[in-house]
């Protein structure tokens, strides 16, 4: 199936700003789905609220656009009820890790087979440019006119600590790597987290004099490197890209099946 066939063209044009990275993520995501040859009926995409969350409207899957921060909790219900379905949950940085932080760590702890994608543009775009828990320090935002003092989360470390069994990071510059990582994340049986650095030229870019979309994407190239590369040793400030964790652990729905077997025997 061509990528185009996974889209609901009826609902285009999309609402993302010119230069926004989220469309690139949509492209990478559908590229992965296409490579896997998945049928549209076997995918449920669940999102919360924010620019990123509007992605569900544009894909021709079973789509659930929910409330802010709670996408993973809704997805947990869908997955528990129908474990044979593939759950993909795209979230923004504020959505996933501010208001949704609790659900994020608990979904990771359970190791439920859901693919969580954190589209990290380090800003609240839909509400007009407020700082998020992934903005980090010394960032200008509408709610940080004197620059942020809040340290940011490291999504990779947080996901690892919470027990996610697949953890990866990439950017909108590295579209091939993005497609490949999402493909592997979908195949992974367990909770997978893919952080994708995505540019918001409209708010983050303008506020922080980061240039236009092209400049911001170039920065992703310049400021990141492959995991364990020579460049990282020489420049520890570089952010690593690639798959950090990929391990097999008991998956929640499979474990629940064992509970059912035990309960039925005990009757």
């Amino acid at each position, binding site marked *: 199936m061509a990528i185009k066939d996974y889209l609901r063209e009826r*609902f285009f044009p999309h609402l993302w700003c010119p230069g926004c990275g989220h469309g690139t993520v949509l492209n990478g995501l559908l590229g992965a789905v296409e490579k896997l040859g998945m049928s*549209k*009926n*076997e995918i*449920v995409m*669940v999102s919360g609220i924010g620019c990123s969350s509007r992605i*569900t*409207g544009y894909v*021709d*899957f*079973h*789509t*659930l*656009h*929910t*409330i802010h921060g*709670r996408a993973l*909790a*809704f*997805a*947990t*219900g*869908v*997955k*528990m*009820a*129908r474990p*044979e*379905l593939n759950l993909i949950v795209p979230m923004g940085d504020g959505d996933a890790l501010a208001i949704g932080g*609790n*659900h994020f760590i*608990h979904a990771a702890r359970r190791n439920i087979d859901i693919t969580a994608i954190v589209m990290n543009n380090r800003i609240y775009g839909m509400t007009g440019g407020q700082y998020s828990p992934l903005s980090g320090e010394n960032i200008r935002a509408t709610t940080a006119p004197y620059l942020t003092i809040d340290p940011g989360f490291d999504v990779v470390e947080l996901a690892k600590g919470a027990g996610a069994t697949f953890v990866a990071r990439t950017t909108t510059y590295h579209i091939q790597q993005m497609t490949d990582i999402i493909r592997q994340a979908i195949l992974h049986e367990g909770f997978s987290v893919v952080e994708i650095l995505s540019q918001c030229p409209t708010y983050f870019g303008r506020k922080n004099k980061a240039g236009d979309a092209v400049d911001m994407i170039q920065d992703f190239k310049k400021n990141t490197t492959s995991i364990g590369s020579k460049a990282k040793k020489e420049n520890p400030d570089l952010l690593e890209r690639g798959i950090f964790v990929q391990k097999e652990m008991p998956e929640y729905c499979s474990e*629940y099946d064992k*509970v*059912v077997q*035990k*309960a*039925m025997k*005990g*009757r």
Partner: protein
Amino acid sequence: MSETIKFVQGNEACAEAALYAGLDFYAGYPITPSSEITETLAYRLPQIGGKFIQMEDEIASLCAVIGASLTGCKVMTATSGPGFSLMQESLGYAIMAEIPCVIVNVQRGGPSTGLPTHGSQGDVNQARWGTHGDHAIIALTASNHQDVFEITVEAFNLAETYRTPVILLLDEVVAHMRERLVVPQPGEIELVERLKTNVKQDVDYHPYLPREDGRLPMSDFGGVHRFNVTGLFHDMWGFPSSEPRVVHDLLRHLVDKLENRAHQLARYKEYYVEDAEQLLLSYGSAARSAHHIVENRRLRGERLGLLELQTLWPFPKEIVREKCAHVKSVVVVEQNMGQIMQAVKLAVDQPDKVFLANRIDGGFIAPSDITNLLRLIQGKGV
């Protein structure tokens, strides 16, 4: 077949009834005084291949329940005041996206953490207006275990019929009291199953296009129809829209589908109402004391009656108006500061004949709390 008789808590009666109604999926979070519902279902649901999950909080519990409902499951969660407060946002979502689910709120004293182990009926108006925005809601209640069973099954039936969340407002007294329950035989109470669309695969299915009778056939997530579900105002495909016509029509539909059926949705019981000179109006555990008094006074020849409401919202105003029309006074008996009394005053022709017999100290309303007020109204003094 011999009948199954149990001696159980109200919470257990509720859990039994949910299973009888065909519960497939339950998500919950521990909170007094509702935990026995969650515990019972943690034990019982896996035995029949159903799904049980303890979530990280009440917010997540209702979200998971809504997600599971979309796959075609009959779903429920149970909580108490503080947890019910946390569920208000996703309750609104279920209303807006028209997703069937049952939410049990075993009321305790509030506000805030309040009185965790004491009874109350203080969440009646929260059930009506807790979530933001104009909307309609169904809220049911019951005063004894047999009724808890039947009204719980009814909650599932109404949720499936009207594609809406239904709130079951129990209270701590009924929830924790033990009494006899005769479990109905399978088939004894009619069960409503979800109305599924008969639209074929590859034909355009409109999840939000009501039929002529107002019902909206559903299609399960994971099935052959792919559609969008959102909490934003949406068109018949479920796609977000801020088109004034779409917004107006959807809100009208959400409110009218329940408010216009208030009469149909009214569940109530009446005792000696026909020739009553004075009427007690009550619900939930408070109705037990009211009923006790009515039976006693009738033995003495006093013309006292009782109207026990089981549907609180949409408020059955026509029925209340009619039953109160010929009595000299109406005493609303409830364990709060008059939440249903306000609705009764709005419903009747003479609001000044409506009085309140209540308690707000965490104590159960005793018959003497009601008789004291009756004496005052009758001009007999304390």
